[in-house]
């Protein structure tokens, strides 16, 4: 028995008692299981799409037509360029040269000149290597003179000029013809989709959807239910400070939410890591961003949980306030996804959670802006798909659209990603702490009749 009547006696025992009680109370409620079950189902459904996407192969597109045979002499254009015969003259082909050169298989000339970009930190760089030699060859096709080889007129022959614009926050690319013009679509697509899935689903699925809805359903009743069921006096009439009641109840809620999210993220990470593109069996490198997603989702749980608990505590109609607030967050989340540099986005909680994910993405995939630039650099080079015979003009590599819609350079631009991460975490923790402080002050003054 406590013979000291101090409220600090046995703090941890009271905390564990109330938290345990809360957890057990959640277990008996149907809504807990329904919400958690629906969340899992939704994630499974989305993962199925991801697995399917990663297992399909994207048609290869011959962006530079060098697998075609324009002069129908039996030798693909690319081979003719290599042997410096005229690809448009049927009477001029490598077969006539010494050495009995047989025609190459056209598939050798599809996706043969991919991105060889090694970027450093300078603002303007000249990169790229002409793998198939259709630019570098002294007499390559119609690119004979130096000025023809330097079609972007940047003074560098057969190269790609890449300039970073800090005004627009993107790379500007201008390439010489024939350099890195036929990249592997399939490889690019899988990598792009992999990254955009993790970032997109991390932000929308975990941070926004689960981050808002789990607390909305489960945390709103933490205090409200007790008052409405007339059982609040059991908790209030004990030697526990009212602030403690709030904190320990929240602790119980987190004890349910944190493992739930942890398991879901872990499961998603395993599935995505196994189906990921790349040479290794499992993409271990992604772990950084998954940890970021987990952290962001946990912080969302904390902040939203506190907020909704307080809404419910303050007034019976606090539920309506919670709904309205939820809608506000939704709208601002959409804005954050579209353009996080808008200041209004910072007025929401979800913005900071998404920023955490963005910051981790920047740290784990620092070359994504380059990838986006590469994806956008392939413009209308190919009109004819060899596989399907369908005329189309991709104006960017497949997968670029998805990646660009979910990727955001973090809006706290001047701070690096690590500082952004720290700032966002701090903002959320401070928000949670101040909410608890305000909440307990309100709760202390609240009469319970």
């Amino acid at each position: 028995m406590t013979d000291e009547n101090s409220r600090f006696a046995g703090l941890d025992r009271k905390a564990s008692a109330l938290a345990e009680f809360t957890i057990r109370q959640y277990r008996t409620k149907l809504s807990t299981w329904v919400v958690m079950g629906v969340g899992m189902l939704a994630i499974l459904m989305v993962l199925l799409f991801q697995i399917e996407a990663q297992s399909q192969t994207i048609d290869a597109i011959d962006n530079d037509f060098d697998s075609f045979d324009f002069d129908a002499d039996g030798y693909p254009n690319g081979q003719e360029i290599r042997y410096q015969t005229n690809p448009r003259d049927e009477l001029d082909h490598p077969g006539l040269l010494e050495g009995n050169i047989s025609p190459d298989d056209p598939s050798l000339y599809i996706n043969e000149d991919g991105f060889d970009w090694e970027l450093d930190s300078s603002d303007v760089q000249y990169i790229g290597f002409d793998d198939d030699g259709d630019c570098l060859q002294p007499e390559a096709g119609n690119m004979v003179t130096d000025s023809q080889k330097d079609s972007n007129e940047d003074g560098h022959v057969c190269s790609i000029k890449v300039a970073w614009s800090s005004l627009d926050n993107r790379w500007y690319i201008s390439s010489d013809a024939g350099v890195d013009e036929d990249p592997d679509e399939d490889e690019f697509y899988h990598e792009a989709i992999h990254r955009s899935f993790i970032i997109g689903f991390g932000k929308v699925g975990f941070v926004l959807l689960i981050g808002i809805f789990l607390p909305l359903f489960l945390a709103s009743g933490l205090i409200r239910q007790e008052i409405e069921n007339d059982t609040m006096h059991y908790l209030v009439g004990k030697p526990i400070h009212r602030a403690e009641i709030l904190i320990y109840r929240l602790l119980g809620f987190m004890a349910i939410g944190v493992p739930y999210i942890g398991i879901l993220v872990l499961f998603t990470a395993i599935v995505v890591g196994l189906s990921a593109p790349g040479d290794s069996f499992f993409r271990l490198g992604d772990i950084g961003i998954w940890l970021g997603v987990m952290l962001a989702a946990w912080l969302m749980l904390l902040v939203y949980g506190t907020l909704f608990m307080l809404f419910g505590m303050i007034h019976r109609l606090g539920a309506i306030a919670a709904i309205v607030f939820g809608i506000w967050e939704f709208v601002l989340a959409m804005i954050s996804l579209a353009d996080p540099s808008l200041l209004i986005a910072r007025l929401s909680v979800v913005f900071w959670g998404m920023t955490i994910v963005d910051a981790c993405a920047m740290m784990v995939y620092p070359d994504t802006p380059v990838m986006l630039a590469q994806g956008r650099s392939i413009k209308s080079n190919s009109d004819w798909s060899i596989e399907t015979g369908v005329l189309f003009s991709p104006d960017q590599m497949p997968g670029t659209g998805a990646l660009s819609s979910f990727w955001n350079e973090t809006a706290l631009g001047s701070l690096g990603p690590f500082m952004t991460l720290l700032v966002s975490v701090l903002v959320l923790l401070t928000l949670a702490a101040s909410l608890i402080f305000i909440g307990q002050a309100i709760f202390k003054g609240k009469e319970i009749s």
Partner: protein
Amino acid sequence: MNEDGEVGDIDAEFLGEEGKAVSGASRMEAAYGSGDGDDDLTAQVAKTGVVAGTIFDTTYRPWRGELNPRWMRNWSILRHHLLGFVKKGHRPWSIWMKLALFGCLIGSMGDLAMAFLGTVIGDTDLYRLFGASRGNLYGHVLGFFPRNALCFPLIAALLIGGMISEDRRHGTSAIYFSRPIERRDYTAMKFLTVAIVLSILIVGTLAIYYLGDILLRGEGWSWLLDTFPMFLAAALAGFLLVFTYTSIGLALSSVSQGRFFPAVAFLAIFLVSKLLAFLIWQLFERSVIYLISPYDCIAHLGQTMLGISSSYDHPWTWSLVSILIINAIALYVLTSRVSSMEVTRE
């Protein structure tokens, strides 16, 4: 009963027949007499001269009045719900609900206001942007942002929130079901209430918009003939939207006991399904998952009916089937819950 199955005097008293009052003594005796029939009917009964008496003298007379026809009873339920918005003494709606409804009504007339502004200041571009047209009629009913993202689902959620669940919680459903009111009618009237309010909000404002635009435009009958089918199509899509919102919402309200869970679950269903489908569309460019989002199914149908180019890859028949299935499930849940609802204060 004795061996030959006849009801003797003592038993008659026990059973309360022949107008004899039941006294404690005889009841005891009958209870003890449940052996194999040939023992004496004796018992240690305290015959303390308990006077069998009635508690109070009440004469029950059956009501011989005329029961009003069914439609009148149902109308009274509907009236009770609807008048609660404007009068005291009927179903109470919270002030926030009324404010939100009012706000959304005004807000959804925004396009008419802009068109009016356009004509007043003579800006033809503004007028063209907001005047009635295929796209604008569609947008008035099925535009996602802000109508179907904020306005309509919020009002629907607030309406259905406590519709049935509050009755269960406060025990007033017992009042309904102990009257000559069928459960089907009760459900139907609740459904109609929500549907009427939502229809005013969605289709009523559409009609005002259309009418207002006709007046502003000052066009002749030929224009009316051209655009009326579009208006009808938009109205039909609007009614479909109203029906779907109502059925899903009431199904949720009948499942829960609070007024909060149905509202939030309602919003969750609409917004989450839309968001998930959007996510998958952005990532994988597959639109088939839009079939789980009720809003998108109706939007697809609306686009088809109004002749707007579809933003979905899959055929509109799939959306139609999906929305029918969704409504069927919701109505099934609603009717089975209400018909099995216990008439006690739970």
